[in-house]
């Protein structure tokens, strides 16, 4: 197969740059239209990663900041697949996550929330998907926390997810939420997403079959990246 473009990104599924309900976006949002280009080698390629980049505990957030004990909170497996819009698995791609601890506090020098830091929880993990696009982490369920958008705004429990895909044009950062959280429909950041079904696709579901008896529950979260054309009639990117 000759290199072909990725599908046009459906911007109606994504938040617009400017959403006054999320106040920080107001001064940080471009106002001029994005430049439309046809993809070149610069867009259909992207960084690759190998197992040599990782340590054995990188995907276990209950252990990768161990300072003599276990972190406090609800232990959980987070797992799922990275797929493209054609439904094909995205193998060997880097998935990175970060999150608050069970108190809703981030281990970051700029976070001053009074929720307690956990001496045994860092809050970041990373892994490569396998040949079927499957990934798995072990972590603890993050807590909700307040933030000053409006005076009484609260973030629902969430985990940040960063994914690469096979090209720089597939690069995506999103957040996953948890089924049944009453804060989801109230959140100004969730509400930047204009399509209600697109919000539902960011909500992880409890997956009892994948839980570990007497150890931890599991949540399932699939991630979809842009798909790619593979027609026989190609507008070739390379050469003539």
């Amino acid at each position, binding site marked *: 197969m000759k290199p072909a473009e990725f599908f046009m990104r459906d911007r109606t599924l994504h938040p617009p740059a400017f959403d006054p309900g999320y106040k920080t976006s107001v001064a940080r949002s471009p106002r001029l239209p994005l430049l439309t280009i046809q993809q070149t080698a610069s867009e259909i*390629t992207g*960084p690759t990663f190998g197992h040599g980049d*990782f340590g054995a505990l990188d995907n276990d957030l209950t252990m990768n900041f161990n300072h003599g004990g276990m972190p406090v909170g609800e232990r959980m497996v987070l797992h799922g697949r990275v*797929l493209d*819009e054609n439904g094909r698995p995205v193998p060997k791609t880097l998935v990175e996550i*970060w999150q608050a601890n069970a108190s809703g506090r981030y281990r970051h020098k*700029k976070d001053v929330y009074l929720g307690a830091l956990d001496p045994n929880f860092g809050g970041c993990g990373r892994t490569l998907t396998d040949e079927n696009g499957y990934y798995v982490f072990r972590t603890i369920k993050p807590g909700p926390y307040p933030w000053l958008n409006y005076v009484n705004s609260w973030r629902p429990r969430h985990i940040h997810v960063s994914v690469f895909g096979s090209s720089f044009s597939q690069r995506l950062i999103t957040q996953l939420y948890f089924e049944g959280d009453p804060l989801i429909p109230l959140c100004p950041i969730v509400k930047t997403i204009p399509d209600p079904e697109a919000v539902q696709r960011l909500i992880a579901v409890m997956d009892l079959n994948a839980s570990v008896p007497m150890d931890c529950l599991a949540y399932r979260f699939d991630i979809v990246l842009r798909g790619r054309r593979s027609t026989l009639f190609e507008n070739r990117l390379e050469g003539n």
Partner: protein
Amino acid sequence: MAQTLNYLKESASQTAGPYVHIGLAPGAAGFKTFDQELGQVIAADGVPGERIRIEGLVLDGLGAPVKDVLLEVWQADANGIYPHPEDPRSSEVASGFRGWGRIITDFDTGLWSFETIRPGATPGRAGKVQAPHISFWLVSRGINIGLHTRMYFPQDSTQHAADPVLNSVEHAVRRQTMIATQTGPTTYRFNIRLQGDGETVFIDV
């Protein structure tokens, strides 16, 4: 009823938030978890090419530096080859060249910088040539979906005149927003303006 197309839909973007460093650069957040952080070396020592340093600010609509932004860059080597299996010349890419970097700011000033080698020209579509450039991707609190742009080099003006992407910018004056300023023999300045006067051209890749 017509047949249905069973495509999946891309997951919606959400802001990387103020604590993006925890996940992508935990050292900057103030702690160590991983033996090695990713994206710190774009071109290892010994990779052929001209060593350069690029610095800049990301500025918001009021002209204030975005101090919590995180940038990623992607570029070809000095011969214009991407280290990726779909570059037809990838078997010839310089050893030790990863082409990808992750860049964080000084939290007090918002200034960022990185070192790399100057990329070569790369093949464009239909036999055209793209002037040397580095692809940028920015995320931060308040940015709802990552922003793509490109940085070109000021000394390549002849190649800029033939670059398909630069030339597709309708208002010629805006092309300058994608061209860095040279500040020394091997140093460049590239400020990115999110909004307002001189708003950078961002690309729907």
